[in-house]
């Protein structure tokens, strides 16, 4: 429970800032504008994007704040091998932006309580899935997670309307534990800092960003029933130590490690306001992260180094925002993300593990009158390879999504209803899998055979959302109640020649209910 004092501090700071923004600064949005801005899918996407790229903080309309309470429920066995068959989660999320003495201020606090019932094959935080080293067992665990997140950013022009300096902070603390054997306890924190300097000309805007961060995941696995520490007779309870891809060994004592992370990176960002109707924006970022997996002991070095994993992440986005008329908004986005991870084997001294993930895609969003439309196409590629066992999985997939929705104004009181419908299809393009079963353990079988089938299967998805928004007289507040459900159905499994001990399920339902307040 060590992060509690930090969490209280975070809450106090954030609540004070939000209260200040709400109480003392004159509104620049009236109630109707706020309602439109809240429900606009294009604007919603842009606000989410600003969380990652606070240099565009000016694009968030002043004094638009939101507070969200949300509960989600996901169920079904169409999940990755290390996913959760059923997840209940509760979210409290509040964020807002204001301008104070010509300083753009953004703040966000989020708390998540998540119950996974149940998950297996990896004790993890779920934010570091590409890492090669972890513990896991065949036994399903009930996992509980508490995650607190604080984000803050400010932007100030060092010269009159020019040389904008942006500073950003993103801090997260998490606690994760399972309460049945083999039980895991994970504590994590991540601190990420951003500094950026920009330049503006009448039509152009440039920013150069620098990122630095560090964090830790502290993982411990133990048995309440001591008999499981002294035998491996029941395969369900055997703890496995995975280091690589398809490279796991049994480990039933001294089951702990720290994953110490350091990261740094840089980015270049350009925006071009061609005219009032057209804005272009491009972002390119690179982030390098090093993770050192250590088990602390009494040696002169104070720890045994299990692995050093390096990862480079490249992200690129281009936006075109087109606003031809007062009732039409168009947003076109091209995005690219590549993650390259690798490590060397700690004792064999050879290249041990390779992880490469690529995502390319394009999304079109159109708001016209009260209708809004969405079309998206994404290409996903994932390669995982182990140098020691030569296990290799390489899968590519295209994902299509189409959606549309409409807003209805109810009466003259500002009440609105929004309905959205969407559908999509996952089309596997190529799949290659190689694993010599001479190196196979049953733990590995459950993970890599399963995941290959999961990634190389087609799937169809459908979803619908309903939102009811209503204003209240108190300082122009708007409230909304939203309900959403998505269903994904797996198609036929690909042909395979190996003998998996488990295969992905057929479907998955994801849903949420949320209440938002916009003020």
């Amino acid at each position, binding site marked *: 429970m060590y992060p509690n004092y930090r969490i209280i501090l975070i809450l106090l700071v954030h609540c004070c800032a939000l209260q200040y923004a709400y109480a003392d600064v004159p509104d620049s949005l009236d109630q109707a504008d706020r309602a439109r801005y809240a429900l606009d899918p294009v604007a919603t996407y842009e606000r989410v994007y600003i969380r990652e790229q606070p240099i565009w903080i000016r694009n968030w309309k002043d004094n638009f704040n939101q507070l969200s309470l949300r509960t989600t429920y996901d169920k079904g066995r169409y999940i990755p091998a290390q996913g959760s068959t059923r997840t209940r989660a509760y979210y409290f999320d509040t964020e807002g932006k204001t301008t104070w003495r010509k300083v753009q201020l953004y703040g966000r606090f989020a708390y998540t309580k998540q119950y996974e019932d149940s998950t297996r094959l990896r004790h993890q935080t779920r934010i570091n899935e590409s890492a090669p080293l972890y513990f896991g067992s065949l036994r399903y665990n009930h996992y509980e997670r508490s995650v607190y997140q604080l984000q803050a950013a400010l932007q100030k022009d060092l010269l009159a309307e020019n040389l904008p300096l942006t500073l950003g902070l993103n801090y997260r603390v998490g606690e994760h534990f399972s309460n049945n054997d083999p039980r895991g306890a994970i504590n994590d924190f991540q601190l990420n800092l951003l500094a950026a300097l920009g330049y503006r000309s009448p039509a152009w805007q440039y920013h150069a960003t620098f990122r630095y961060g560090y964090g830790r995941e502290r993982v411990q696995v133990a048995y309440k029933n001591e008999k499981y520490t*002294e035998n491996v007779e029941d395969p369900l309870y055997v703890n496995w130590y995975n280091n690589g891809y398809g490279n796991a060994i049994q480990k039933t004592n001294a089951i702990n490690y720290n994953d110490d992370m350091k990261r740094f990176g840089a980015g270049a960002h350009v925006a071009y306001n061609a005219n009032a109707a057209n804005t272009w924006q*491009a972002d390119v970022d690179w982030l390098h992260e090093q993770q050192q997996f250590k088990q602390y002991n009494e040696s002169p070095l104070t720890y045994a180094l299990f692995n050093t994993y390096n990862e480079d992440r*490249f992200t690129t986005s281009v936006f075109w925002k087109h606003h031809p008329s007062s009732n039409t908004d168009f947003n076109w986005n091209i995005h690219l993300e590549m993650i390259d991870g690798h490590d060397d084997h700690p004792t064999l001294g050879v290249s041990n593990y390779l992880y490469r993930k690529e995502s390319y895609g394009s999304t079109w969003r159109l708001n016209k009158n009260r209708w809004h439309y969405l079309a998206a196409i994404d290409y996903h590629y994932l390669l995982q390879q182990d140098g*020691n066992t030569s296990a290799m999985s390489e899968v590519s997939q295209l994902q299509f999504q189409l959606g549309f929705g409409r807003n209805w104004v109810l009466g003259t009181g500002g009440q609105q209803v929004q309905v959205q419908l969407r559908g999509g299809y996952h089309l596997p393009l190529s799949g290659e899998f190689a694993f010599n079963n*001479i190196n196979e353990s049953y733990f590995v079988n459950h993970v890599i055979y399963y995941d290959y089938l999961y990634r190389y299967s087609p799937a169809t998805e459908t979803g619908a959302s309903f939102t009811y928004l209503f204003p209240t007289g108190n300082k122009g507040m708007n409230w909304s109640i939203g309900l959403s459900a998505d269903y994904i159905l797996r198609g036929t499994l690909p042909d395979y020649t190996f003998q998996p001990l488990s295969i992905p399920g057929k479907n998955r339902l994801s849903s949420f209910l949320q209440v938002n307040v916009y003020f």
Partner: protein
Amino acid sequence: MMKKFILLFVTLASLAACKKDRPESTTVDLQVQLSSALSLADQQSFPFDQVKVTLINLRNQSTSELTPDASGKLTFTGIAAGDYNINAAVTLSRSDYEALTGTDPGADVSFNASQNNLNIPVGFSETISLELVNGTSGAFLIKQVYYAGSDTKNGANFRDQFLEIYNNTDEVLYADGLYVSRLWGKQRPEDKADYYQENGQLDWSKSRGMPSDIDANKDYVYLRDLFQVPGSGNEYPVNPGESIIIAQNALNHKVPFTNNKGDEVSVKDPDLTVDLSDADFEVYYGDIPGKTPFATDIDNPSVPNMLPINYDGNDWILDSNGKDSYIIFKAENGLDVTTLNAYYEPLIAEPGPSAKTYIQLPVDAIMDAVEAQPNLAEDRIPKKLRPDFDAGFAFVTLGRYSSQAIIRKTERTEGGRKILKDTNNSTEDFVVIKANPRGFAD
């Protein structure tokens, strides 16, 4: 403008798209060549294509089994670098053996070969040579070893340990003078105080005073303790298909007893332990000069005591984790245990005043042997026995104090007499049961 932005995007994306090379595969094609020292009749060749060769990955316990070609060659393709055990085993029928050699062996004959803790590094290209040898077919066999003991709170702890020795022949044998011993060697994976062989076991050739003209590692074993069945030669007959029990304490461990300090000791759960009140022999330290036995070391006057020749500790406590190897032998062919030499283990540092010496026994004397090992792979230690005595190892799956014993499988029954499996490979010959004195595996 749009063209400029697309161009910018493509340029930046191409900068990011530099792919790293894939890792070179570091798997190894492990080549194995089998041979046999068997003297064959003319025109005969050893049936290598009947041999079963098993490769065990010590890191993840995965196993792979192959059969060589007629020349004894085989290749395990694409194995990960790491540590392995490799075993080869075949049993020739009595008639096949006779056809091969022109000699009637009187029974089926098993051949074994093994290499253990074999480190296969990246780039390994050597050929592993395995020589199949037929082990001894002893008259007496070690049938059951109950080293694990029972629960420390609800059972009898280590007090109820026993060893069962079986007459696997169709003749009456006499237990008189039979020696029972545990072997000494590297007892913990992390031990670093001694000189070691490539296989990880103690390098006895570096022991102080060890003659240089003998193969101290291959031709001898070293005794942790040594006890002998009493008797003048025909006092303790063992009928075909029957056995003798050597108990740590020949008591009914299911009921309370009074220890040698006068305190009553009871067992909370009698089902966890065994009744050894009808054991044939027991080990008692109370008569050994200078030894103070544990309070639980009770002498049952109706059960003969084993003769202590060499011993340690305060009672005959078998390693409950399974780190002992067990042998039985008789003083035959001129063997006199009183004249055997004893040596310090091959310590790097000078032996201290309390350092113990270990009797050096020629392996030819061994009648039967069993290698036990801890149940957890990470706790296992290098084997102490050559593959012609035990090509594998056995262990209780639930670990120490689990009430489990290792027991030899029953191969067949002839005229009501059970003949136990004896291929000199305890991995194949033994299974795990709840300890059951004079019981059988099936």
